[in-house]
């Protein structure tokens, strides 16, 4: 989201103003609460007007999100949030359009709208709460559920190879791709702010614990004990260091990443992250398919490409400049017309 006509110095609202009067009906302990809180904390810092924010969602636990925000909100139908948001943004480019969606809503039934929005590059921010389960419908496996996962629809274990949402977004040519998690409020706030400031579609995969139907799915990355060794945080221009004692790093052997021990290697050997490289984003996005590699978080990719609504407006502007503003009566009389006289 870029500089905006209604941008002001003092937004005049706080996180508290963003709470709606609706009781929040997520399960106690649900990761969604933290995400809501981080978003409510981040928005007032952006310097934009409250009435310009619109939260559009599909259907799912996550998609109840708009009800809890005292902004404009549209709780759509399952899978179609991005399509609704795309139309809204195309028609009304001044709005600050956010999509809140789930792994099922976004990647299962909504997969087509997702990949097309990626390539068309609307300036919308898509926050996908990934709990690797269909929660609202009480626990079926989702396109991000892991192989073998036992759920209500896979009592003998899921046999699908899951999507890697970051990989899919990159393959669909999204211009901003990031990953964060419910349990790291600071990182999540930063990532949301980055997404908001990106001019073009931002896709943020947010690991979210569903403590009812898929509890602990991300413990490896969120538990104090295991987090340091199993996560790596991507920062533009910085070498990839991780581990409990910051003792490990990632270097590239050609195009293949390797985990190295910093007691044996210098930091200078490490891969210095560049968020403008599609190749690097791709290489790191599925690095953790291989055992021993950490899960990357942060902004994988951030590149510039004209947004769809800008192009649309530009084209309209150019035509009006060239052909003049449309005149309905002239339009009706275009081409072959003839007059019949009073007789």
């Amino acid at each position, binding site marked *: 989201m870029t500089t905006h006509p209604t941008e002001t110095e003092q937004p005049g609202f706080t996180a508290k103003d963003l709470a709606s009067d609706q009781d929040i009906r997520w399960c106690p302990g649900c990761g969604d609460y933290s995400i809501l809180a981080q978003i409510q904390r981040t928005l007032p810092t952006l310097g934009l007007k409250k009435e310009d924010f619109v939260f559009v969602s599909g259907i799912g636990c996550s998609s109840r999100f708009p009800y809890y925000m005292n902004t404009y*909100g549209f709780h759509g139908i399952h899978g179609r949030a991005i399509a609704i948001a795309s139309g809204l943004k195309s028609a009304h480019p001044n709005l600050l359009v956010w999509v809140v969606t789930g792994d099922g809503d976004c990647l299962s039934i909504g997969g087509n709208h997702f990949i*097309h929005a990626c390539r068309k590059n609307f300036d919308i921010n898509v926050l996908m709460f990934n709990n690797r389960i269909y929660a609202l419908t009480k626990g079926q496996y989702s396109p991000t559920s892991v192989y073998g996962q036992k759920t209500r629809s896979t009592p003998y274990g899921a046999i699908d190879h899951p999507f890697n949402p970051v990989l899919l977004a990159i393959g669909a040519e999204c211009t901003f791709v990031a990953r964060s998690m419910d349990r790291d409020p600071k990182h999540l706030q930063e990532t949301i702010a980055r997404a908001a400031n990106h001019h073009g579609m931002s896709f943020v995969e947010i690991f979210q614990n569903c403590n009812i139907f898929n509890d602990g799915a991300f413990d490896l990355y969120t538990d104090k004990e295991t987090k340091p060794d199993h996560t790596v945080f991507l920062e533009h221009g910085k070498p990839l260091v991780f581990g409990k004692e910051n003792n490990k790093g990632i270097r590239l052997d050609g195009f293949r990443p390797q985990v190295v021990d910093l007691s044996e290697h210098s930091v200078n050997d490490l891969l210095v992250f560049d968020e403008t490289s599609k190749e690097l984003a791709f290489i790191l996005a599925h690095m953790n398919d291989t055992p021993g590699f950490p899960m990357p978080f942060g902004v994988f990719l951030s590149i510039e490409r004209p947004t769809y609504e800008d192009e649309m407006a530009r084209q309209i502007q150019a035509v009006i400049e060239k052909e003049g503003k449309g005149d309905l009566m002239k339009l009706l009389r275009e081409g072959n017309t003839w007059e019949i006289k009073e007789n």
Partner: protein
Amino acid sequence: MPTTIETADGRKKKVVEIIELHEATIRFAGDSGDGMQLTGSQFTATTAQAGNDLSTLPDYPAEIRAPSGTLYGVSGFQLHFSDRDIHTPGDRPDLLIAMNPAALKVNLKDLRPGGYIIVNSDAFDAKNLRLAQYATNPLEDGSLKGYQVFEVPITKLTTAALEGIGLSMKEITRSKNFFALGLCYWLYNRSLEPTLQWIAEKFANKPLIAEGNRRALMAGYNFGEMTEVFTCRFNVKPAKLPAGWYRNVTGNEATALGIIAACECARLPGFLGSYPITPASEILHELSHYKRFNFRTFQAEDEIAGICTAIGAAYGGSLAFTTTSGPGMALKQEAIGLAIMTELPLVIINVQRGGPSTGLPTKPEQADLFQAVFGRNGEAPLPVLAAASPANCFWMTIEAARIALRFMTPVILLTDGYLANGSEPWLLPDMEDLPDISIPFATDPSTFQPYARNEDLSRPWAVPGTPGLEHRIGGLEKKHLAGTVSYDPLNHQFMCEMRRAKVIKVQDAIPDQTVFGPETADLAIVGWGGSYGAIRAATERLMEKGKSVAHVHIKYLHPFPKNLESVLRGYKKLLVPEMNLGQLSFLLRAHFFIESEKLSKVQGLPFRPSEIEEAAAKILESM
């Protein structure tokens, strides 16, 4: 009775009888590559400018470019013109121009007995005869007895006329449709001027081609003039049409223009979310040219995205449209339900085609009425309108938008492939003929309630970006007034009934049902949609024969006009011709307990007036 006289300069000149006709129907038919659509539309333009009323119907093959000479590659264009008000592209052509054997074979059955046939005799070679599955040459085997056949070596004559001007053989052959056109102009006593002018403009950058076409056109005309082949010429005088400026429009053009006009009338930016599908795509094509009207066309990834982007745009304060045909309509139904629940204004246009499933994708049908009225989950009522003629598409589109805005509701407008591609002269409206359909946005935080209702039972339209009106909408049941989510049982019943009441309230905002003909009679022919023309023509013929008959054409299909029941009760019998298996007839039974005779035609072809006339006559006889 042609005779020749000698002119002053010694040349022989034919004297040909000119027969005055009230109306004529001609059909150009040839290979897809023969340019028959162009020929037809030129004849149409000229005829329109001559002041006739007219109606046209193109008939394309389903294939993009079928192999030449085949039966399924035949392309046709029919034109009906008259010195009176007419309503259809004509029952059966009086004249068939057949550029090859396949064109003859496919079209002959429609020609009226004793009709004229002009064939390009050069095309009747062994190969083409075989491709057309003729065992023997119809020009020789006597099978055309009963028609007046004129064999004209069009290819050779065109070649001769264009020889030496520097065109390739292929280019020369391509001009032969202009020869045929010229000949027809002669035959129907039309001016060459409009087409000569068109050629000059169109091929301004290709002077050789322009010259070739010009010569071919002249050659055809002169062929009529000079040879003794034709025994007479025809003349159809101008019709007495209301004064004013006219143009010819197809239904799809008129729909696109209606969309632009509706946006102007509503003083709103316009948005179309659509996915291409035959026969609706032209609406998208047309609108994508109208960027100077600040109109946004969005070609979506599928029909669902088409309507959902439109819903998003409507939420954002645009006048939003989505266009499609049958199968695409089915895909949009879930989202239509969302528009019903969120009570956003939206116009959904379904250009009906032959079904079920992919069916007959290039052919018209009227079998989506049920789908329009009933095709969603839950109690999901919405207004359904249908356009009656190509030009009427313009007005009904504005009507649909007017109702959508005034009642904050999605509205379905049904047209069909016949209206979409057919054309008729259209008396162009002036700005003051157009209604003001604008409605105010909500802006006052002190009184705003998302689901408060005005006297039309319509809720306020509060566009994101408006300070202080922040609120949430969505597909879950809404609490009366507050618009928050409500699972309250009685609220649900209230809201279901409210949504229905709102749609029924549209009755107060639509015109009463009108009747063509007497208010009471033995028979009313009751129709909807594109069969308007055929029914009207049939009714007129029956009236001329002194029959007690009227035509009731329903443009508002849900809710029906308030007075419809009493109108229908004015007739002893009802005949309902439909291009389906009886959908309107079913609705009339259910709504009014009124029995009617069905006349069902599901052949991918529009009704002929004579079919309706016959069915009506039979009923009248049996009374």
